[in-house]
Structures are given as C-alpha cells and as structure tokens.
C-alpha cells in the first residue's frame, strides 16, 4: 500500500512545548462542529510520574496518524475507511459507515437464528443474566437448546478469535438460558391479538419458532404435530446427554405461554388435510426429515436390525430397546455417533461404528468422534457393506470390504474404489442403520413444488403454493437447529408482512462488504478462554447425564469480559484509539480527517494553527523529518509496528 502513496502527510509534535492546554482540542471541535462527548478528533493525554518533589508531567497530543498500514482500513467491514493515494490521508466515508451499533456484529451476523450475540454477551459481562436471556428470546426461543446443541458458527466469526480464542458464546447462551424468568407469565412483549389464524405443521424447532414469533405478533397460531409429543428431533432425535428433556420442556412451555397452541397426534396427510388448513390465513410447513434411509442390501429385514431414528426415538421416550452384546452402528454422521454413544449409555459392552467415509471425511462433528473414542467406541472407517448376515432370523454380522476411497460425484452418484480381496465380517447382534434421513413427501399437499428432496422456498420461506410457507429440515439444506430456528423466524416475518400488505423484504440499508480484519493483534490484551467443565468419562457413560456442565455466573462473567464488544471495528483496531463515536442515535464513525479541505487549500490543520506554544506542525512526512529529525518516540507512546504512524515527535524527557 505504501508505494502507492505519493506524498505521505505527517504530523509533528514537540512534547517539550506542549503544555496540555487543550486549545487544539477545542479548536478542532469548533472547527468541525463536533459536540462535546466522546467523539474527539484531537486529544491530549497527560502523563504524570515521580514522587514529590521530583515529578514529571508531560502531555501527548494525538490525532489520526494516517498510518502506513492503517489498521482501521483493514478492520472496516463496510470498506468505509480508505487511505488516499495522493497524500495518504485516511478518510472515512460516512455514507458507507455502518454506524457504531450495526458495525462489528460478525458473531451476530453469523448466527443463523439471528441472535444479538454481542448484545447478550455484553449483558452477561455486566452481570445482567436475565436480561441476556430476554435479549436472546427476542429472536430465538430456544437458548437452552441452542446453548447445548448448536454448532455455533458465531464462535468461528468471533473477532476475539483473531486475537486468541473466540468467546465461548455457546456456553454463555446456555448460562443465559438458566436465568430464564421463573415466572411463566413473564413472556416477552406481545402485540395486540389479531384475528388472523396461522397453522404450523410440525413442532420441531422451525415450526415452534415460527409459531412463537407469530404469536408474539398477535396471530392465533396452532401447531399440528404427528407424534404424541412436541419438539421434533429435539425431542426424539437428539440424545438426552446432549439435551436433557427438561430443558426442552421448559422452553416449549415458554412458547406455549406466549399463546401458541400445540395439537399433538395430528398428522398431515392422515388426520389433517389441505381442506382443514383452508381456514388458516397462512400455513407453515416444518415437517422435518423423518424418513429414515435404509441400506438396500440382503438381510436388512433380519431381527436386530433397526434404523437410527427409531432407535433414538425409543431411547428418548424411555422405551425398552432390545440391545444385544455387540452393537454396530452404520453411518458416519452425527446421528450415527449419537446412536453409538446412546448404546454405550444403555450398557452395551461393545459398540462399533462402520462407515463409508475415511476418518477425515466423516461428516460427524470431530469433538463427537473424539468423545466417542474416549467412551470406548471403535470406528471402522472406509467400508462398504455388501450384506447383513444372520442366523435364525436374527442378525449376527455385516459383511464388508475395505475402500481405498469414496466420493460423491457432482450428480450425486457414489463412486467407490474398493480394495480387492478385503472382504471381512464385522460381527454384531444389533445393527443400527444411521445413514441419513429424508423428507416424507407423500404427506405434503398437492401442487407443492419439491426439488432434490426439499420443499422449494424463496428467501422469505414462501413456497410455490399461495399462503404456504416452509422451513426447517423440510426445506433448507442446513440440517441444524439454529438454521431451522432462523428459517422459522424469517417465515414468521414474511407471513406477518404478507398479512399486513407490506413488501416482502425490506432492502438492507447498509451492508458489509468484507470481514473485519485486525492487522495488528498485538495491541489487544490476550485473555484465556474460560474452559467448560466436563464430566469424567466414567460418570458420563453411566446413564444419560449431560457431559458438559453449565458455567457458573462468575465463570460466565469472566468469559464474557473477554468480549471485545465489537462496535465500530475501526475503533477497536486502531491502536491509538482514534476513531470514535458521537453519543446519540446510530452515530457514524468520527475521526480526524487531517483537515483535508484546509490542507488542499494550502493551510495547516486547525490544531496546528491553534497551538499557543506552536508545539505542532504538519506536512509531508519527509519534510517533517528533515526539519525536526527522524521519528523519535514520544514519552509514553508506543508505535505498533504494523501501523507505522506518520508522526514525528520531539520527545520530552524528565
């Protein structure tokens, strides 16, 4: 970048002449019409040292140093800050600036459920735990669920991650959920009741979230659920050691308290049909992906062979499952891992997993794989399965071959590179097939467009049928709770807009063009991430206790205090604290512009022209160096190598 600059403008300060009077500060404020308050383009810090009567008192006037590798430029996600080629003056484009509050929300932006992450973490930092919960449920009624099972893309986006490790956002969300208001009547603000009725089909996280938001907006919402219990995969899929069912009960109760009516044992296509749904002004389809795929190989109908979803559903509803001694789970995803780990907890002495993928390719979460290993589960990667063996109608093993590699072609066909003569048998008296689920399209209303096994929707959630919206696993490719929640929320918004005759989506006013990048993380204080306590393996596998413990309030506060509270990434990034913000509504970044207009008119900046002791100067940096000597560091001033400020000081010594 430096080479492009023709004449780098610089700044000079004679610390021996600066008397700390702040005339430059006021001159700058009045010249640029900046009100009193935090945004000050020019600042004077004082430095006091020594013990009476040997004291040192110095001052450090500072303003934007128009750094060579300006950290603010790199950090701005909107591309609003730039360094001018002709003189290296760093300028901010206020139209592009997102404003302090909207800027730097990378974690919140990354949350598929739309949680105000920065907001709730900062509330925890202040010890306002219940307020943190309240803020989360503004968007996501399932903080207790998400705080346990979410894959937390927010943490990958967290700016602190550039400094050391990301904030433990997920664990903090879980802590916040523990502070859910104990009073069931303490529901969030509800709009006035409206007459329109909305039906939601499927009570998984997508459906319940959509219902929750619609209820809060005043609609009369009924959720129809095929099963006798509400919660979808949260209820019947995700094992209890990940998600204790009391947590789910608590959050569903909260949703019901907001006015959502849930009718169980109502299956669309069976005891509920399109005509029943006609009385509803809108319908949200969120039936999930509950059809278990099976292996189409001989022996699949033998006794002892079951699907993963069935197995987990039974375990989750405390039904008795006949487990043998040697369990083999077939599949490489999270569901397979969950099945295997559940089997361990049911007391199975030997649990194996076998899958097509190599260890590296396994789609399951690596932590889950590692924990499975700790719990004694053996994994047999890179296998293809030819048949299930059995005797007396009961299975007793699977015949496999080893694979060099496997891959899915672009069109979805599977390509296997088999190792010849590697046939072998993995013995098993229970075989759980967890090789994927699919949407049950049969039950869907006629005329609904389906493609690639998913209901086709636009970005608002609208389907091909008028007044029909869809979300969750049934309609989106990301099969994760948070995405399901996000899709439900978006659809609720779209349904509301449709009912009120508003345009479908509001065009975003400002946008980010890139990710905030800190070019110099040395300026940040490193702080260790508070670790989450885990149960030891032995107690973990005896039954279904939660493996991870919740933060204590103190731990949470400590962890939250690591949050950089990214508001205005430029100001965080600038090692000299130059970019600042006005008080007031959505203020834009304020920063010294080196009096660029004056400069162009051949005048010095106002600060330079105002110093009563003529301590300041400005001009091309080379000229300043020639005039005052090369860069000498001012007392109590640290240059950050990466930002190399264009400033010359005459330093004051004691």
């Amino acid at each position: 970048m430096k080479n492009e600059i023709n004449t780098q403008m610089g700044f000079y300060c004679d610390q021996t002449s600066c008397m700390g009077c702040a005339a430059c500060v006021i001159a700058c404020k009045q010249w640029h019409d900046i009100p009193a308050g935090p945004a000050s383009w020019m600042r004077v810090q004082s430095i006091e040292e020594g013990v009476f009567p040997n004291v040192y008192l110095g001052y450090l006037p500072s303003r934007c140093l128009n750094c060579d590798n300006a950290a603010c430029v790199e950090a701005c996600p909107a591309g609003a800050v730039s360094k001018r080629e002709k003189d290296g003056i760093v300028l901010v484009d206020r139209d592009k600036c997102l404003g302090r509050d909207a800027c730097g929300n990378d974690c919140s932006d990354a949350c598929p459920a739309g949680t105000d992450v920065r907001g709730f973490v900062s509330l925890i930092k202040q010890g306002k735990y219940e307020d943190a919960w309240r803020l989360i449920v503004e968007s996501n009624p399932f903080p207790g669920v998400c705080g346990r099972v979410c894959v937390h893309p927010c943490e990958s986006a967290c700016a602190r991650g550039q400094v050391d490790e990301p904030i433990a956002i997920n664990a903090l969300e879980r802590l916040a959920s523990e502070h859910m208001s104990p009073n069931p009547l303490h529901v969030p603000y509800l709009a006035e009741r409206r007459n329109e009725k909305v039906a939601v089909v499927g009570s998984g996280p997508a459906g319940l979230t959509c219902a929750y938001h619609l209820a809060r907006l005043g609609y009369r919402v009924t959720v129809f659920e095929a099963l006798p219990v509400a919660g979808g995969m949260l209820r019947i899929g995700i094992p209890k050691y990940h998600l204790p069912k009391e947590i789910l009960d608590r959050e569903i109760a909260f949703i019901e308290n907001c006015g959502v009516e849930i009718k169980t044992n109502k299956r669309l296509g069976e005891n509920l049909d399109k005509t029943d749904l006609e009385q509803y002004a809108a319908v949200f389809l969120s039936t999930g992906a509950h059809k278990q795929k099976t292996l189409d190989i001989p022996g699949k109908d033998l006794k002892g062979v079951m699907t993963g979803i069935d197995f987990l559903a039974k375990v989750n509803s405390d039904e008795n499952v006949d487990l043998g001694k040697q369990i083999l789970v077939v599949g490489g995803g999270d569901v397979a891992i969950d099945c295997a780990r559940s089997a361990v907890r049911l007391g199975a002495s030997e649990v194996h997993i076998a899958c097509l993928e190599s260890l590296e390719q396994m789609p399951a979460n690596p932590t889950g794989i590692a924990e499975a290993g700790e719990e004694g589960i053996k994994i047999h990667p890179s296998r293809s399965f030819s048949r299930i063996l059995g005797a007396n109608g009961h299975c007793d093993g699977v015949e496999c071959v080893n694979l060099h590699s496997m891959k899915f072609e672009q069109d979805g066909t599977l390509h296997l590179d088999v190792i010849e003569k590697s046939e072998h048998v993995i013995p098993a008296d229970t075989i759980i097939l967890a090789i994927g689920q699919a949407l049950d399209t049969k039950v869907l209303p006629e005329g609904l467009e389906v493609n690639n096994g998913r209901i086709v929707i636009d970005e608002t959630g609208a389907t091909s049928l008028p007044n029909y919206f869809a979300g969750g696993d049934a309609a989106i490719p990301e099969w994760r709770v948070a995405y399901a929640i996000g899709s439900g929320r978006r659809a609720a918004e779209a349904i509301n807009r449709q009912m009120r005759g508003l345009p479908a989506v509001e065009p975003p006013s400002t946008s980010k063009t890139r990710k905030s990048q800190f070019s110099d993380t040395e300026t940040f204080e490193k702080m260790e991430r508070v670790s989450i306590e885990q149960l030891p393996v032995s107690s973990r596998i005896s039954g279904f206790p939660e493996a991870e413990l919740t933060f204590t309030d103190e731990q949470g506060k400590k962890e939250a205090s690591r949050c950089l509270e990214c508001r205005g990434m430029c100001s965080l990034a600038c090692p000299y604290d130059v970019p600042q913000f006005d008080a007031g509504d959505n203020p834009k970044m304020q920063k010294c512009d080196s009096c660029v207009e004056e400069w162009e008119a051949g005048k010095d900046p106002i600060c330079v022209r105002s110093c009563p002791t003529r301590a300041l100067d400005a001009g091309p940096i080379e000229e300043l160096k020639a005039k005052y000597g090369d860069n000498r560091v001012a007392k109590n001033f640290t240059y950050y190598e990466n930002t190399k400020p264009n400033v010359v000081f005459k330093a004051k010594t004691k």
Partner: protein
Amino acid sequence: MEDNKNDSGVQIIKSATAHHCGGCCVWKLHVKDGKIIKMEPDDDQENPQLRGCLRGHSMVQRLYAPDRLNYPMKRTGPRGSGEFKRISWDEALDYTAKELNRIKEKYGNSSIICGGGTGDVTMVQGYGFHIERVLRMFGGYTCTWGWPSWEAASFASHVNYGTYDAMNCRDDNLNSRLIILWGVNPVATIHGTNAMWYFKRARENGAKIIYIDPRYTQSASVLADQWIPINPATDTAMVMGMAFTIITEELQDQRFLNRYTTGFDVFRDYVLGKEDGVPKTPEWAEERTGVAADVIKQVARDYATIKPGALISGISPGRTAFGEQFHRATATLAAMTGNIGIKGGEPAGRSLGDQTPFHAYPFKMGPPMQIGENPVDKEAPTREIYLPNYTTKDQRSYARIHLNKISDAILHGKAGGYHADYKAFVVSSINHVNQFPSTIKWHKALQKLEFMLVFEQFMTATARYADILFPTAELFEKNDLIVGGSSPFYGFIKKVVEPFGERKSQIDICNLLAERLGLDVEEYNDKTDEEWVKQIAMGGGDVPDWDKFKKEGIHRMPLEEPYVAFKEQIEDPENNPFPTPSGKIEIYSKLLADMNDPFLPPIPKYFEPWEGRTDPLIKKYPLQMITPRFRRRTHTQFDTLPWLREVQDNNVQINTKDADARGIENGEMVKVFNDRGEIRIRATVTERILPGVIGVPSGAWFKPDENMIDRGGCPNTLNSERYSPCGSFTWNSALAEVAKVGEDEK
C-alpha cells in the same frame, strides 16, 4: 460588510476577543446567515500572531449556549432559588426605575451599592462604567474599593515606583538570561496572549527558568529548569533570605542602588537583623518557607549574577495575608540586582499585564466614558491608606465598602460601623457571590435587600439572587475595545452579529435606564459604542488609521524593540525622575512612614501570615488552601460550556501523603471545610502539590444544598473576607481540612 463573502455565503470578519482572562486574541470569524458558525486564529497577522486559547475557541459555543439569558427576567422564587419568569424590557426597566426611586427617596442614595464589574474588562462596555455613571447622575451610590486581582501588586508598585505601569512587555523576556516565575501559571492565567510562547522561546534561547510555586503546574512542566515548592504566604520570607545572601555576599548592584533608589540602608539593616535583632538568614527563611537554605542562596546568587534576569512576581503570592510586602520585596530585589529599566530585566513590582487598565505599555488613549464624581464618596473622610497617584481621595473614602466586605456591610450597615444601611444592590458584569470570600455570608446578606438588579449573560450564583435580570450582549454582538496587557496593541472587538434573543449591550441598556430615571440622556451618553471605540483608540493618537483598524481588528504599536519599563528613568535619571515623591525608586517610603501603620511599614518586611503555618488554627485545620485559576474557565465564566467542561475535572489537588493520611483515594468525593463553610469536591491525589497544601480551583459555581453545603465546590465558601493591610484579597491565606464523606453525609 468589509470582507468578501465566499461561494457558500460565508463571510469572514476579523475581531478581537478578551475576557477577564489576561489575554486578547484576534480571530477570523466565519459568519453565515447572521450567525457565527466557526472561528480560526487570524493567520494574516504579522508575526507573532495573537493566538487564542481553548476559551477563545469556545466563543461560538458560548455565544449560543442554551443556558444564556436571552430575555429580561423577574424573580418569582425566594432569593437564590434561581426561579424567574420572562418579562418585557419595558416592564424590567420600569420596575427597576420605580424601585431605585423608591429606595433613594426612603433611604437616600448611599443605600444603593454598586461596584466591581471586573468580569468584563473591555474598555467601552466593561467594568460597569455605564451603570455607575447612571447612578452617579441619579444622585450617587455607595461604591466599592479594592482590586480583586491586583491590589497588593498595584499598591506595592505605586510605593516603589510611583506607578503600576511597571513591567516590561513579554517579548522582552527573549532578552533575559534568567527568568524567575514566582507564582505564575500562564497556561491557566494567560497574562498576555503568547506569554507561554515567549517564556518557552526564552528557555530555548538558553535562559534558565526557576519556577516557584507550591504546585508543579502545566506551565512548570514546559518551562521549569528548577521547581521550588514553597509554603503559601511565606514568599516574602524567601525574598528576605535571598536579600540576606546578596547583601552578605556583597552581590548587590550598589551603583544602581546609589543612583536610583532611596532607603536601601534601612532595608539592609532590617534584613541583617540590626533593626529587630532577627537576621533574615536563608536558614530563617527555610524555617518559614520550607525551601532549603542552600536553594535560597543559590536562587539569590543566580538572580544577582545571571544578567539580565527577570523576576516575574506573580499575583498569587500577593493575595495573601500581607501580600503587598511580597511585591515590595521583589521590586526591592530587582533594584538590588539592577534589573530595572534594562532589556531582559523586570521591575518585579507588578510583573503581569492583564488588559485595561493593567498593561505594560503606556498607551496614549482618548478618554473613555467617565463615571464622574460621586456625591456619596464626599459624605465621608478619606481612609488612611490613601496613596496619591494611585487613587483619588474619593476612591478611598470611608463611604466606600471594600469589595470583600459588601456582604458584611449589607448585613450590619451603620451598626457594623459602615457608612450607611444598604437596601439596594446593582451588579453589572461581576459575580460577587461566587467570587468573593465567605459565600455563605453573601447568601444571608442578599436576603436582606429590598432590591437587587443584575446585568448578566448566564444564571450565575449572583444572578440567582436578583430581583431583575438584564440579559447582556456577548462580544461580537456589540462594539468594544481592548489593549494588550503585555504586548502593545489595540484590539477591536467588533459587532459581527445582532444580539441573540433580547440581549442588549450595557451601553444600550443604560441609555434606556437613564431615560426611565428621568436623567438627561444626552448628557449621560452622546455616543454609540463604535464612536466610543474610535474616541478611545484614536483620541490619544495611538491608532492612526480607523478603516484599517476596523478591517484588521488589531493595531500594533510600531516599536523598534520590546517595550522596557523605566528605560528613560534609568538611562537619563536627571531628566526623568520616577513618579514617586523622591523621584527615586522608594525602597523606603516616606508616604508609608507617615501612614504610621505597623503592618504597612516604610520598607518591605515579612510578617507571619494569619491562617498560615504558624497560626494556632492550623491544629484544627491543618491544610493551607490556595485557590489557583483553572484553565477551562475565566474565573466563573465559560464554566457551563460542554466543550470546556470535559477538558478537566474540577477537583481539589491534594498530595498523596495528605490523602493517604486521610484514607482518600484519587477521584473520591471529599469534603473540604473550615469554620466558614464546607464544600464537596472530588480529589485529585497527586505528587504535584506540596504536602500540607491543597489547591481548590477558583471559579467553580457555588451550588449550596439545603444545609448550605456547597456541592459546586466554590472555594470562596471557605475563604476569608479579611483583607490585607493595603486592601488585597487573601485568597491564598486560608486554612481548611479535607475528609472523606461519611456514609450518612452523602
């Protein structure tokens, strides 16, 4: 108007500003649609440009501050409550005229007090000249005496030199090889725009700067080669110790003393102890000042040998119990070292220029508006401390009240030994309640009045007690004139915009009031403000070109070299005697000898100050309180402006040792108290103040709570009204204690 308008409709007009800040600066004002939108230093000026400070730059905010008084007001709540309602100018003027007439008839003219006016130091509209002239024509009024800022320095200067125009201009300090700054903090007090810059350049030129002050100030941080912290109110003792060293080491300039002074022998005998048996040795001085004897000797030798040397005798050491002795002593030291009337020297009597009338250069001005002789002054004899040349006899009439004693006089009247019983109080451009000692006494006194009129810009502590408030115009809303206190120039403070709201200039208000009072308006004032500016600036011949002056806002006196006071007297003493009775510098003053006041002796002497370290009261109140000026305001002015408020916190400075002994933490709210009152203020715990001393910034706005505890932190709540023998205020002679605020006291 005179300058070009640019494309965006912005007109640039040059104008000077001056407050009672000690400076005068020239600006280019950017005016658009009848409003000043911003301002910049006037860089068209020849070098050196008169650069303003932070207060100057905040004039835009001050001009349009939301807490400005924009309309005449009438009090609706109790006195001091600050509850007022807006009224019309007609009503305000009629009511005022009616009340003044009634009080005059019932109690006589002497029952009306008016005086002060130093909050506005401009030459046309300032100092309350106008209202005082109106009241004089109305039959007279009780006037005041005593300059709050300069009494000790001016008095001493008159004794030694016969005039208070006794200082070199600041640019002459570039010729000095030694500068002793004694109680001088130009960062806050300015004392001549560019003063800091000249001192700094002098230091860069190689001058040694010795800085004597109980505080290590911002000025010290830039200027001091040596900082000498000294116990407040003992400065004269150090001067005596220096004199002892110079005399015993025979370093004095005897030729100078013989030729230009009288009475050095008497002073020498006093210093050596021949008069009272107490030799004023450096060790004797160390005991009092806390400054090591060796250091005193070194400073004495420096001053006697590094020539030329300028001892700048600041006014704060003069604002103590026997403050005039300090200035008399430093002037004597200047004579002993032969530093008078020479380049780079300094007469050291009153070494700091403010603005009108305290300036270095002898301007030849046309006459300003005259108050005229006040009949009430004639009702009583002249006080004993009257010095011819300095004041008229009337100005020391017993009918006058010392500015410090107004509250006492209102409370006690004739029964208290005052000339009259006082019923009405007319206040223009001054904030008595806040800025004169014993604030709580003021609160009580003002309740007794039958009528109080205040001319103001803001709802100050004093304004809160008024019956009628006249909103006055700001600089730039009226024409006015100022001269440089320590540089020879005239500044034109121009009317650039119309007064905002219903503000009016003093001159306009007084014209209306004179009419309402049935006075001869023509006789009272026959000029507009601009005509006054012209008469004063050009009437004596100083400003030759009116149009140029008006356009540029400044006229500099054309001088070949920096102005040096008493140059003629020193170069040619035969033809240029000093304006003293003897024609010489009077180290011994016969005038004072004739006054026969043991505390105003003919030669400078040291007296143990009351409320100093030797006062038994120190057992009860162990800390010496000084009341330094504060950079973000000029006395009380500017203090409500948000830009300036965030510059610095209004805290009491206390040394770490004293704070630790009291368990006080930096930034903690503490109480500072003595028998006169209590204030609440946050503490700045610092190493930059002498242990045993606290610095409460002056000018904080008095805000009493229901128990009369001042939550605003105004030091006058704690200061004493006792004035020095010559009439100087004693703001730096007060004992107090600091303590944590108890849970139940918050």
